[in-house]
Protein backbone atom coordinates (compact mmCIF):
# COMPACT_ATOMS: atom_id res chain seq x y z
CA UNK A 1 0.00 0.00 0.00
CA UNK A 2 2.71 2.35 1.14
CA UNK A 3 4.83 1.35 -1.85
CA UNK A 4 1.99 2.00 -4.30
CA UNK A 5 1.43 5.39 -2.77
CA UNK A 6 5.07 6.26 -3.20
CA UNK A 7 5.09 5.15 -6.82
CA UNK A 8 2.06 7.23 -7.65
CA UNK A 9 3.58 10.19 -5.85
CA UNK A 10 6.76 9.80 -7.90
CA UNK A 11 4.74 9.55 -11.12
CA UNK A 12 2.78 12.64 -10.19
CA UNK A 13 5.93 14.63 -9.53
CA UNK A 14 7.46 13.53 -12.84
CA UNK A 15 4.28 14.64 -14.57
CA UNK A 16 4.42 18.01 -12.82
CA UNK A 17 8.07 18.46 -13.78
CA UNK A 18 7.28 17.69 -17.40
CA UNK A 19 4.51 20.25 -17.40
CA UNK A 20 6.89 22.77 -15.85
CA UNK A 21 9.61 22.09 -18.41
CA UNK A 22 7.09 22.51 -21.19
CA UNK A 23 5.71 25.78 -19.89
CA UNK A 24 9.11 27.11 -18.84
CA UNK A 25 10.24 26.99 -22.45
CA UNK A 26 7.50 29.39 -23.37
CA UNK A 27 8.53 32.08 -20.90
CA UNK A 28 9.01 35.39 -22.72
CA UNK A 29 12.64 35.64 -21.67
CA UNK A 30 13.39 32.19 -23.11
CA UNK A 31 11.84 33.00 -26.46
CA UNK A 32 13.50 36.41 -26.19
CA UNK A 33 16.89 34.81 -25.65
CA UNK A 34 16.40 32.44 -28.58
CA UNK A 35 15.38 35.33 -30.82
CA UNK A 36 18.30 37.41 -29.56
CA UNK A 37 20.75 34.62 -30.40
CA UNK A 38 19.22 34.22 -33.82
CA UNK A 39 18.84 37.84 -34.89
CA UNK A 40 21.07 40.05 -32.75
CA UNK A 41 24.03 38.16 -31.33
CA UNK A 42 26.02 38.12 -34.60
CA UNK A 43 26.82 41.79 -34.18
CA UNK A 44 25.94 42.64 -30.58
CA UNK A 45 27.61 39.40 -29.39
CA UNK A 46 26.29 36.65 -27.16
CA UNK A 47 26.17 38.55 -23.90
CA UNK A 48 25.22 41.84 -25.53
CA UNK A 49 28.65 43.39 -24.97
CA UNK A 50 29.02 44.64 -28.56
CA UNK A 51 32.31 44.67 -30.50
CA UNK A 52 34.94 47.40 -30.35
CA UNK A 53 33.59 50.68 -31.65
CA UNK A 54 31.77 48.90 -34.48
CA UNK A 55 28.72 47.42 -32.79
CA UNK A 56 27.36 49.02 -29.61
CA UNK A 57 26.56 47.07 -26.45
CA UNK A 58 22.90 46.30 -25.82
CA UNK A 59 23.61 44.96 -22.33
CA UNK A 60 24.25 47.48 -19.53
CA UNK A 61 23.59 50.11 -22.17
CA UNK A 62 22.50 53.64 -21.26
CA UNK A 63 21.10 54.01 -24.78
CA UNK A 64 18.75 51.04 -24.34
CA UNK A 65 17.40 52.36 -21.04
CA UNK A 66 17.05 55.92 -22.33
CA UNK A 67 15.29 54.80 -25.52
CA UNK A 68 13.18 51.93 -24.27
CA UNK A 69 10.05 53.36 -25.89
CA UNK A 70 11.61 53.22 -29.34
CA UNK A 71 13.34 49.82 -29.08
CA UNK A 72 10.46 47.93 -30.68
CA UNK A 73 10.47 50.17 -33.76
CA UNK A 74 14.27 50.14 -33.90
CA UNK A 75 14.32 46.34 -33.97
CA UNK A 76 11.61 46.21 -36.61
CA UNK A 77 12.88 48.94 -38.94
CA UNK A 78 16.58 49.20 -38.21
CA UNK A 79 18.58 52.36 -37.61
CA UNK A 80 21.35 54.31 -39.33
CA UNK A 81 23.43 57.36 -38.50
CA UNK A 82 25.54 57.95 -35.40
CA UNK A 83 24.34 56.80 -31.97
CA UNK A 84 26.17 57.35 -28.68
CA UNK A 85 26.17 54.43 -26.27
CA UNK A 86 27.94 54.60 -22.89
CA UNK A 87 29.96 57.57 -24.13
CA UNK A 88 31.15 56.00 -27.41
CA UNK A 89 29.80 57.03 -30.80
CA UNK A 90 28.93 54.21 -33.17
CA UNK A 91 28.05 54.64 -36.83
CA UNK A 92 27.29 51.23 -38.30
CA UNK A 93 23.89 50.88 -39.94
CA UNK A 94 21.63 48.21 -38.49
CA UNK A 95 19.20 46.48 -40.80
CA UNK A 96 15.62 45.97 -39.63
CA UNK A 97 13.78 42.74 -38.88
CA UNK A 98 10.42 43.31 -40.53
CA UNK A 99 9.72 39.58 -40.54
CA UNK A 100 9.40 39.43 -36.74
CA UNK A 101 5.89 39.30 -35.35
CA UNK A 102 4.61 41.64 -32.67
CA UNK A 103 4.89 38.89 -30.04
CA UNK A 104 8.42 38.09 -31.06
CA UNK A 105 9.46 41.73 -30.82
CA UNK A 106 7.78 41.96 -27.41
CA UNK A 107 9.75 38.99 -26.14
CA UNK A 108 12.94 40.35 -27.61
CA UNK A 109 12.45 43.77 -26.02
CA UNK A 110 11.63 42.03 -22.74
CA UNK A 111 14.84 39.99 -22.91
CA UNK A 112 17.00 43.01 -23.75
CA UNK A 113 15.48 45.26 -21.10
CA UNK A 114 15.01 42.84 -18.24
CA UNK A 115 17.74 40.23 -18.74
CA UNK A 116 20.48 42.31 -20.33
CA UNK A 117 19.86 45.65 -18.62
CA UNK A 118 18.31 44.75 -15.28
CA UNK A 119 15.19 46.79 -15.98
CA UNK A 120 12.20 45.79 -13.84
CA UNK A 121 9.77 43.51 -15.63
CA UNK A 122 6.87 45.96 -15.58
CA UNK A 123 7.27 46.34 -19.33
CA UNK A 124 4.07 45.14 -20.97
CA UNK A 125 3.24 43.64 -24.33
CA UNK A 126 0.52 46.24 -24.67
CA UNK A 127 3.12 49.01 -24.70
CA UNK A 128 5.09 47.26 -27.46
CA UNK A 129 1.93 46.88 -29.49
CA UNK A 130 1.20 50.59 -29.13
CA UNK A 131 4.77 51.54 -30.05
CA UNK A 132 4.79 49.32 -33.12
CA UNK A 133 1.49 50.82 -34.21
CA UNK A 134 2.97 54.27 -33.94
CA UNK A 135 6.24 53.55 -35.71
CA UNK A 136 4.39 52.00 -38.62
CA UNK A 137 2.19 55.10 -38.88
CA UNK A 138 5.11 57.52 -38.72
CA UNK A 139 6.94 55.47 -41.34
CA UNK A 140 3.97 55.55 -43.67
CA UNK A 141 3.77 59.30 -43.34
CA UNK A 142 7.42 59.93 -44.11
Amino acid sequence: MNKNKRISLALASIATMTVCFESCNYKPKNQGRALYNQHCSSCHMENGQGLGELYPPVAKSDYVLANKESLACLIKNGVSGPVTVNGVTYNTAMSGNPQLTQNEISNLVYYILVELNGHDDSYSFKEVKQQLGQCLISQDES
Partner: protein
Amino acid sequence: MVNKSWRIGLSIVLAVSIITACESETKQLPILGPTIIKNTVVDGALISDTTFGAIRGFKFWDQDSNVITENTVEGKLYVTDFFFTSCPTICPKMKQQMLRIHDRYLDEDKVVLLSHSIDPVRDSVQRLKTFAEKLGVQTEKWHLMTGNRDSIYSMAKHYVIAAQEDPDAPGGFAHSGAFLLVDTKRQIRGIYDGTDPQEVDQLMDDIQFLNEQE
Protein backbone atom coordinates in the same frame (compact mmCIF):
# COMPACT_ATOMS: atom_id res chain seq x y z
CA MET B 1 47.60 -13.57 -0.09
CA VAL B 2 46.90 -14.68 -3.64
CA ASN B 3 44.17 -12.11 -3.84
CA LYS B 4 46.57 -9.37 -2.77
CA SER B 5 49.28 -10.12 -5.32
CA TRP B 6 46.63 -10.37 -7.99
CA ARG B 7 45.51 -6.87 -7.07
CA ILE B 8 49.06 -5.53 -7.11
CA GLY B 9 49.61 -7.12 -10.52
CA LEU B 10 46.48 -5.56 -11.85
CA SER B 11 47.43 -2.10 -10.61
CA ILE B 12 50.86 -2.40 -12.23
CA VAL B 13 49.27 -3.34 -15.56
CA LEU B 14 46.87 -0.45 -15.21
CA ALA B 15 49.59 2.04 -14.33
CA VAL B 16 51.78 0.91 -17.24
CA SER B 17 48.90 1.15 -19.70
CA ILE B 18 48.03 4.65 -18.49
CA ILE B 19 51.66 5.80 -18.82
CA THR B 20 52.10 4.33 -22.30
CA ALA B 21 48.76 5.77 -23.39
CA CYS B 22 50.02 9.20 -22.41
CA GLU B 23 53.39 8.72 -24.06
CA SER B 24 52.01 7.50 -27.36
CA GLU B 25 49.86 10.62 -27.66
CA THR B 26 52.40 12.80 -29.44
CA LYS B 27 50.66 15.66 -31.13
CA GLN B 28 50.88 15.98 -34.87
CA LEU B 29 49.21 18.37 -37.23
CA PRO B 30 48.30 17.13 -40.70
CA ILE B 31 49.30 18.93 -43.88
CA LEU B 32 45.97 19.77 -45.47
CA GLY B 33 47.08 21.32 -48.67
CA PRO B 34 47.42 22.44 -51.24
CA THR B 35 48.07 19.06 -52.82
CA ILE B 36 49.66 18.42 -56.17
CA ILE B 37 48.68 15.24 -57.95
CA LYS B 38 51.26 14.04 -60.43
CA ASN B 39 50.15 11.40 -62.91
CA THR B 40 52.76 9.30 -64.63
CA VAL B 41 52.36 6.32 -66.88
CA VAL B 42 54.70 3.47 -66.09
CA ASP B 43 54.48 0.39 -68.33
CA GLY B 44 51.03 1.43 -69.47
CA ALA B 45 49.69 1.82 -65.92
CA LEU B 46 48.67 5.20 -64.55
CA ILE B 47 50.41 6.07 -61.31
CA SER B 48 49.13 9.01 -59.29
CA ASP B 49 51.41 10.60 -56.77
CA THR B 50 50.20 13.16 -54.24
CA THR B 51 52.68 15.69 -52.95
CA PHE B 52 52.20 18.83 -50.94
CA GLY B 53 52.74 22.19 -52.55
CA ALA B 54 52.63 25.64 -51.01
CA ILE B 55 50.04 28.39 -51.09
CA ARG B 56 50.90 30.38 -54.19
CA GLY B 57 52.00 34.00 -54.31
CA PHE B 58 49.51 36.87 -53.98
CA LYS B 59 49.32 40.63 -53.98
CA PHE B 60 46.77 42.65 -52.03
CA TRP B 61 46.62 45.99 -50.18
CA ASP B 62 45.94 46.41 -46.48
CA GLN B 63 44.20 49.14 -44.44
CA ASP B 64 47.34 51.32 -44.55
CA SER B 65 47.80 50.83 -48.33
CA ASN B 66 50.78 48.52 -47.68
CA VAL B 67 51.33 45.98 -50.44
CA ILE B 68 50.86 42.53 -48.90
CA THR B 69 52.43 39.58 -50.70
CA GLU B 70 53.80 36.15 -49.86
CA ASN B 71 56.96 37.98 -48.74
CA THR B 72 54.98 39.62 -45.92
CA VAL B 73 54.41 36.19 -44.37
CA GLU B 74 57.85 34.78 -45.13
CA GLY B 75 59.06 32.71 -42.18
CA LYS B 76 55.79 33.32 -40.34
CA LEU B 77 52.71 31.41 -39.29
CA TYR B 78 49.56 33.08 -40.49
CA VAL B 79 45.84 32.81 -39.96
CA THR B 80 43.62 33.82 -42.85
CA ASP B 81 39.91 34.27 -43.56
CA PHE B 82 37.45 35.92 -45.96
CA PHE B 83 34.86 38.50 -44.86
CA PHE B 84 33.37 41.90 -45.75
CA THR B 85 32.83 44.90 -43.52
CA SER B 86 29.09 45.31 -44.08
CA CYS B 87 28.39 41.63 -43.43
CA PRO B 88 25.40 41.31 -41.13
CA THR B 89 25.73 37.60 -40.33
CA ILE B 90 28.80 35.64 -39.26
CA CYS B 91 31.58 38.20 -39.84
CA PRO B 92 31.28 40.17 -36.59
CA LYS B 93 31.75 36.96 -34.60
CA MET B 94 34.67 36.00 -36.82
CA LYS B 95 36.22 39.41 -36.17
CA GLN B 96 35.62 39.06 -32.42
CA GLN B 97 37.48 35.75 -32.50
CA MET B 98 40.24 37.04 -34.81
CA LEU B 99 40.65 39.91 -32.36
CA ARG B 100 41.36 37.36 -29.61
CA ILE B 101 44.21 35.94 -31.72
CA HIS B 102 45.39 39.49 -32.51
CA ASP B 103 45.49 40.41 -28.82
CA ARG B 104 47.18 37.20 -27.74
CA TYR B 105 49.98 37.35 -30.33
CA LEU B 106 50.42 41.12 -30.42
CA ASP B 107 54.05 40.82 -29.28
CA GLU B 108 54.82 37.61 -31.18
CA ASP B 109 56.31 38.71 -34.52
CA LYS B 110 56.09 35.23 -35.95
CA VAL B 111 52.28 35.28 -36.11
CA VAL B 112 50.34 37.42 -38.63
CA LEU B 113 46.68 37.62 -39.57
CA LEU B 114 45.40 38.16 -43.11
CA SER B 115 41.71 38.92 -43.72
CA HIS B 116 40.52 39.21 -47.32
CA SER B 117 37.51 41.35 -48.14
CA ILE B 118 35.28 39.68 -50.73
CA ASP B 119 33.55 43.03 -51.34
CA PRO B 120 36.41 45.06 -52.86
CA VAL B 121 34.02 47.50 -54.54
CA ARG B 122 32.70 48.83 -51.23
CA ASP B 123 35.61 47.84 -48.99
CA SER B 124 38.12 50.46 -50.07
CA VAL B 125 41.41 50.93 -48.23
CA GLN B 126 39.81 53.87 -46.40
CA ARG B 127 36.83 51.81 -45.32
CA LEU B 128 39.07 48.99 -44.09
CA LYS B 129 41.12 51.58 -42.22
CA THR B 130 38.06 52.90 -40.37
CA PHE B 131 36.91 49.35 -39.65
CA ALA B 132 40.33 48.38 -38.28
CA GLU B 133 40.55 51.47 -36.11
CA LYS B 134 37.14 50.87 -34.61
CA LEU B 135 38.16 47.31 -33.85
CA GLY B 136 41.46 48.40 -32.28
CA VAL B 137 43.66 46.57 -34.80
CA GLN B 138 47.45 46.99 -35.12
CA THR B 139 48.18 47.01 -38.86
CA GLU B 140 51.47 45.07 -38.64
CA LYS B 141 49.70 42.24 -36.81
CA TRP B 142 46.43 42.08 -38.73
CA HIS B 143 46.23 43.06 -42.39
CA LEU B 144 42.66 43.66 -43.58
CA MET B 145 43.10 43.36 -47.32
CA THR B 146 41.39 44.42 -50.50
CA GLY B 147 42.48 44.16 -54.11
CA ASN B 148 41.51 42.99 -57.53
CA ARG B 149 38.16 41.23 -57.35
CA ASP B 150 39.18 38.24 -59.46
CA SER B 151 42.43 37.81 -57.54
CA ILE B 152 40.50 37.69 -54.25
CA TYR B 153 37.99 35.13 -55.47
CA SER B 154 40.63 32.96 -57.10
CA MET B 155 42.66 33.14 -53.87
CA ALA B 156 39.59 31.92 -51.91
CA LYS B 157 39.31 29.07 -54.36
CA HIS B 158 43.00 28.29 -53.94
CA TYR B 159 42.56 28.11 -50.14
CA VAL B 160 39.39 26.04 -50.82
CA ILE B 161 37.26 28.53 -48.90
CA ALA B 162 33.75 29.09 -50.23
CA ALA B 163 33.11 32.72 -51.21
CA GLN B 164 30.73 34.11 -53.78
CA GLU B 165 28.55 37.04 -54.67
CA ASP B 166 24.96 36.11 -53.91
CA PRO B 167 22.19 38.68 -54.20
CA ASP B 168 19.93 36.48 -52.06
CA ALA B 169 22.38 36.26 -49.15
CA PRO B 170 22.22 38.88 -46.36
CA GLY B 171 24.59 41.68 -47.36
CA GLY B 172 24.96 40.34 -50.91
CA PHE B 173 27.72 37.78 -50.37
CA ALA B 174 27.83 34.19 -49.17
CA HIS B 175 31.02 32.86 -47.66
CA SER B 176 32.47 30.41 -45.19
CA GLY B 177 33.43 31.41 -41.66
CA ALA B 178 36.57 29.29 -41.70
CA PHE B 179 39.95 30.34 -40.33
CA LEU B 180 42.95 28.64 -41.92
CA LEU B 181 46.27 28.15 -40.16
CA VAL B 182 49.19 28.28 -42.60
CA ASP B 183 52.74 27.36 -41.58
CA THR B 184 56.12 28.85 -42.51
CA LYS B 185 56.26 26.62 -45.61
CA ARG B 186 52.88 28.11 -46.61
CA GLN B 187 51.14 24.78 -46.14
CA ILE B 188 47.67 24.65 -44.58
CA ARG B 189 47.85 22.91 -41.20
CA GLY B 190 44.38 23.47 -39.78
CA ILE B 191 40.85 24.61 -40.66
CA TYR B 192 38.66 26.01 -37.87
CA ASP B 193 35.21 27.50 -37.47
CA GLY B 194 36.02 31.17 -36.93
CA THR B 195 32.73 31.82 -35.16
CA ASP B 196 33.31 29.18 -32.46
CA PRO B 197 35.44 30.28 -29.47
CA GLN B 198 36.41 26.67 -28.67
CA GLU B 199 37.69 26.00 -32.18
CA VAL B 200 39.66 29.22 -31.99
CA ASP B 201 41.15 28.03 -28.66
CA GLN B 202 42.25 24.92 -30.56
CA LEU B 203 43.70 27.10 -33.32
CA MET B 204 45.77 29.03 -30.78
CA ASP B 205 46.96 25.75 -29.21
CA ASP B 206 48.02 24.65 -32.70
CA ILE B 207 49.87 27.94 -33.30
CA GLN B 208 51.71 27.33 -30.03
CA PHE B 209 52.51 23.79 -31.12
CA LEU B 210 53.86 24.80 -34.54
CA ASN B 211 55.83 27.63 -33.00
CA GLU B 212 57.54 25.29 -30.54
CA GLN B 213 58.11 22.63 -33.16
CA GLU B 214 60.03 24.85 -35.53
